[in-house]
């Protein structure tokens, strides 16, 4: 079952650290369940795409990613969204703390 996301965007030394958690089954072709996995992830900073990811069934269930963006400031708007092979999507938005 695809469900809620959670994100924390914090300032590191010289970069913004974006940690994002996704609820998703990420089933594989080996399991007996229908194939269901996230294929695309987009990370945006203040509306501009910074990371574009394509992922496979080899990403663990309930995916967790950390990305880094150079510089950044408190209050920057970070948005992460995903799209899976069934066309389901989800997104989350947070300000850099």
């Amino acid at each position, binding site marked *: 079952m695809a469900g809620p996301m959670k994100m924390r965007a914090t300032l590191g030394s010289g*970069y913004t650290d974006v940690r994002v958690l996704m609820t998703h089954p990420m089933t*594989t*072709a*080996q399991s007996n369940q229908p194939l269901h996995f996230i*294929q*695309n992830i*987009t*990370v945006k*900073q203040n509306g*501009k*795409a*910074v*990371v*574009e*990811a*394509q*992922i*496979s*069934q*080899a*990403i*663990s*269930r309930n*995916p*967790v*990613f*950390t*990305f*880094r*963006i*150079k*510089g950044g400031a408190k209050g920057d708007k970070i948005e992460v*969204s995903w*799209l899976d*092979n069934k*066309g389901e*999507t989800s997104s989350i938005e947070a300000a850099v703390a």
Partner: protein
Amino acid sequence: MNNLRRNLVAAAALLLLKPFAALAAAWNKDAFGAKTPQDALKGIGAGNPAASTDLVIEAPQIAENGAVVPIEISSAIAGTTAIAVIIEKNPFPLAAQFDFQNGALPYVKLNVKMNETSDVRAVAIAGGRQYTATKEIKVTIGGCGG
């Protein structure tokens, strides 16, 4: 220009023009469907990458559970615009590819599934050239603890 880059550029272009769902088109079906690491490399346009020590895979050498193997990849190669992760012995070796732009650092931390003990290969694209590094991760049989 290689396929990985081309696909990612296409993805970025689509994003500007169409709703998010259109991104489905930007999923590299051939590369993700490849059944050997060689075909996966070819699929992302990195048929013969050069070994680089500036591409670093940070991961435990032993994983207690292949269902979740944490990996951190960072590239110190100037101008790195993409990183791909290939798990050589997985049935479909290509696990992910990340395109970095507009100030994103060539860094990612993720959890991958590993079918068995295998080399994990990172591929970086910088200035149209391909670089690679590998690390072996042993997947052990677990007991009942934890």
